[in-house]
């Protein structure tokens, strides 16, 4: 405590100095120049000598210590509006960039002290960001968009950083899996061919419907990637997952399979209790089902849409406007965390993921067993206890320009909201573009990236500087439909099930 006080005293004394100097300089202007030049250095040298004596050995060790960043690359120190921040997250492995930026000191390097707080569900998380309880959070891609257009809680939320690609899976209960195997001989093999479509699920759905029941499946939030992926997977096999309408905000109109919301960490328990027969959720909750032997992951979202955008880092527009420099510092730290997570050795193996899994398994972060988290984080996925497959791109945190906030990602989520009726009115193509631009803020991202490049911490080629914000059109979907972000209406009309404009 004592040396700390010394520092405080020293700093306050020093802070008075420039004021005195300025006054001296102003008054000096009137008399003579030589007085100014003579007076000030004397003052300064005295002050420097004084502060030198108040500081102990620590200051000397700085100059000797090789770790001192002062000797490293020049750092653009931002003038932070706020340096103690609170970020929320949900217990999922894809919160890794935030956790890693904290634990590996990337936030500290920017002068930030960040508290990372687990939230019970996505709704509470969003509410806490909007009401200012949290400064920012690990969010579902659909959340900033939905909040901005006013589906659910209305608030202008923006994102300047995409946290990861892929990382979800669809798990069904053991009994549904057995029935699927009966309907499709190919699934009986201990290592069935992938991707597994919902075709084998269709007869089960129909049997249930015939007996007046509906298959129940869980997803994590109405505007979550999981909801859209699960719907996509079902609809690709001709199963109607139900529509949202003005009066039906549960999304069950015409449904053949009913989807309901369950917070991610609760999924395995809800499946085990029999309230749902399957779910779509992020990791580690699919691997947890395998570890506990309560369900079988049938597919990952990598199979549904290769390299699909997943979580984003969201803040309110108000917060971003009030704390522009802090926001930049945060994005800088997050980019570095993503880079650290995707670091590979010469052979192309991810080298930091085991350490990341170890950190994430701490009880105040994801908290699941290290072994369970490790599977997917190190690029493997257990589909059954005997079916372990390499999936190097199961979680992508940096590759493929993934951290860049792409407008085309925003447009895709908007098309899904329209497809399933969360957006009740038809909208023109320009609206999609404008809305995406309100939420996704590559300008902030690029500014942060530019600083990192000039500090030598990021390669020039790691950022798509010249893009218009739209990814190349792709048909890497499970049903092979082409998606071009410039043509949302055409994309909507190319689906069999779903609203068409």
């Amino acid at each position: 405590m004592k040396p700390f006080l010394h520092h405080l005293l020293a700093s306050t004394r020093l802070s008075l100095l420039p004021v005195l100097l300025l006054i001296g300089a102003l008054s000096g202007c009137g008399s003579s120049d030589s007085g100014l030049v003579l007076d000030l250095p004397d003052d300064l040298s005295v002050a420097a000598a004084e502060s030198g004596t108040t500081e102990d050995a620590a200051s000397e060790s700085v100059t000797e210590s090789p770790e001192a960043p002062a000797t490293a690359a020049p750092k653009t120190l931002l003038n932070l509006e706020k340096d103690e921040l609170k970020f929320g997250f949900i217990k999922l492995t894809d919160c890794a960039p935030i956790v890693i930026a904290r634990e590996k000191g990337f936030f500290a390097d920017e002068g930030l002290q960040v508290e990372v707080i687990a939230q019970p569900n996505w709704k509470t998380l969003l509410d806490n960001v909007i009401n200012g309880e949290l400064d920012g959070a690990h969010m579902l891609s659909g959340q900033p968009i939905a909040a901005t257009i006013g589906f659910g809680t209305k608030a202008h939320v923006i994102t300047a950083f995409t946290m990861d690609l892929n990382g979800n899976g669809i798990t069904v209960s053991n009994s549904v899996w057995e029935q699927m195997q009966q309907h499709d001989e190919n699934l009986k093999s201990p290592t069935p061919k992938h991707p597994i479509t919902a075709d084998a699920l269709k007869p089960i759905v129909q049997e249930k419907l015939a007996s007046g029941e509906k298959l129940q499946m869980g997803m994590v939030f109405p505007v979550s990637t999981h909801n859209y992926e699960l719907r996509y997977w079902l609809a690709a096999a001709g199963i109607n997952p139900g529509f949202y309408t003005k009066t039906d905000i549960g999304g069950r109109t015409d449904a053949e399979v009913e989807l309901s919301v369950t917070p991610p960490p609760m999924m395995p328990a809800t499946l085990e209790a029999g309230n749902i027969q399957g779910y779509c959720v992020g990791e580690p909750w699919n691997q947890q089902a395998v570890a506990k032997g309560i369900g079988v992951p049938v597919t990952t979202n990598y199979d549904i849409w290769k390299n699909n955008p997943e979580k984003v880092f969201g803040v309110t527009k108000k917060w971003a406007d009030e704390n522009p420099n802090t926001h930049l510092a945060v994005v800088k730290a997050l980019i570095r965390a993503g880079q650290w997570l995707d670091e590979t050795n010469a052979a192309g193996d991810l080298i930091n993921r085991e350490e990341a899994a170890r950190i994430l398994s701490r009880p105040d972060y994801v908290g699941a067993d290290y072994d369970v988290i490790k599977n997917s984080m190190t690029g493997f996925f257990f589909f059954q206890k005997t079916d372990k497959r390499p999936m190097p791109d199961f979680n992508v945190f940096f590759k493929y320009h993934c951290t860049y906030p792409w407008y085309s990602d925003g447009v895709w989520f908007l098309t899904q909201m329209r497809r399933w009726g969360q957006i009740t009115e038809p909208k023109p193509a320009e609206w999609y573009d404008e809305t995406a631009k309100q939420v996704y803020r590559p300008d902030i991202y690029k500014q942060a990236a530019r600083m990192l490049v000039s500090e030598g911490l990021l390669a020039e080629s790691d950022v798509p500087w010249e893009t218009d914000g739209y990814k190349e059109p792709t048909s890497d979907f499970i049903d092979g439909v082409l998606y071009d972000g410039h043509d949302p209406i055409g994309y909507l009309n190319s689906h069999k099930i779903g609203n068409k404009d």
Partner: protein
Amino acid sequence: MKYKLIKAIDVAGLTFLTPVVRLCYGEEPKKQLQEIGRFIVVPLIAFAVFVGLWGAIAPRHKTKSGEVPTPLVVWDAASSIWRFHDREADKEDAYGLSGKTREQKLAIVEKRLSQLEPLETLANQHVKEANAARTTSVEELVGPILTQYEKLDAEFSAAQTEREAALKRDAGLLASADRAAREAYLQRVRDHAAKTEAEREQLKELKAEETAIRAEKFPQLVNALKAQTRIAEERQYLGKLSEQLGHGNRTLKLDEQMAQLRADQVTFLSAEGDAAFMLAQRIVRQEARIQKTSESTYAKPWTLPMQIYRSLACVFAGFLIGSAIAIPIGVLCGLSKTFMAAMTPFIALFKPVSPIVWLPIALIIVGGFIPDPDKHWLIDFLANLPLLGWMKINPAFIASAITVALCSLWATMTNTALGVASIDKDHLNVARVLRLGFKDRLFKIVIPSSLPLIFAGLRISLGVGWMVLIAAELLSSSEGIGKFVWDQFNNGASDSFAKMMVVVFVVGLIGLVLDRIMIVFQRLVSFDDAAAAI
């Protein structure tokens, strides 16, 4: 002395200690020993039996989330909770260390880190070996089952196709009018379906057997993993600690920023025009930054001991709010039958409402009053209080406290009303004779003579409040014991179950202590020698 001690013990409600004191003074040794046997030894034995039974029964009940933890596992979990707290406190300290202490500590940490390295390699080796051993042993056990499964599967599907083929063939031979033959045929199809089902069941059983073997715990692997985890966790902790002592250290950061400031100041002296303005601006900014850095603290995560402290603060906040409402209303109810009649419907209506209903309502209302918690004067004020400041009191905390108040005030209110209503008429008559004013009557007669019952009510209220609080925290995710339990449940790790059991004991113990404290108060204000309820 003896009687003083006994009296103190009596007031504290620790009557089971009385025979010990009496025995020490040599009073009727035989009787005292008997009493000790009954009130101390028997409960201890009962507890020991409970722990023994628990230890014996727990491992037999397997859930999919893991085994029910034995007392030993729970003890382990408790120490791991404590370790986490300890380590986080260490990191916090490390951030603020400076000078020689910092260097010494850093040296210790580095040394321990280098010691850990070979240990870690060894642990990894062990895990690998255990894994291999497990795989071979599992394969050995599973192998015959699998071969049998495959054999049966092939047999059954061959038999099924054969039966189906026969049935199809015979379908062609059915004469159009032969009802009996048709019925017999139908029966055959039924039998076929039943048989197929039975065969499927048989296969399912085999599969279940295989799954059970695969799920079986392998002690060697479990131990190896445990050792590996412990080492890896320690390494993680030391790594962060060395960062906090090294380049992440506050003092070092400050020094670096100071050096920069000084350099800027020197250049500023010779700068002119625009450059001078820029430099001056930079200097001012740097000063602000130094100020912030010197005030910064390590963002420490919540640990159970901190959460317990916060829960206690929350329950007392709620308890005080509740009592402040309940006692005045209770007194008025006791004094005036009319007022009581007016209040009865509200008491009857709101008393049974569950905390789960009050909480969201309280959250919404508090949220309405405090739209921007970061800048609200109340939150700001609370954050600067000496003992409460670090707890980061937020709207969720206030809502939880209000929920506690709403659920716990009824016992105090009804007890107060009863206490006031049952004051000895003679006392009131004396007051009337002395022509005491309302104020005097209230503070000299009414409240003093109803205090024992008021405190009995308060004691129940505190107990209810403590129970309600855990649920409220769990729902509002306000940091505290409830949040800890919820986080553990969400973690679903192998030790989560045991950690929740630790909380059971912690909550129980704190509840017990709170209750005892209230008993002491109750005794202190009682005139009569009524025995305290246990």
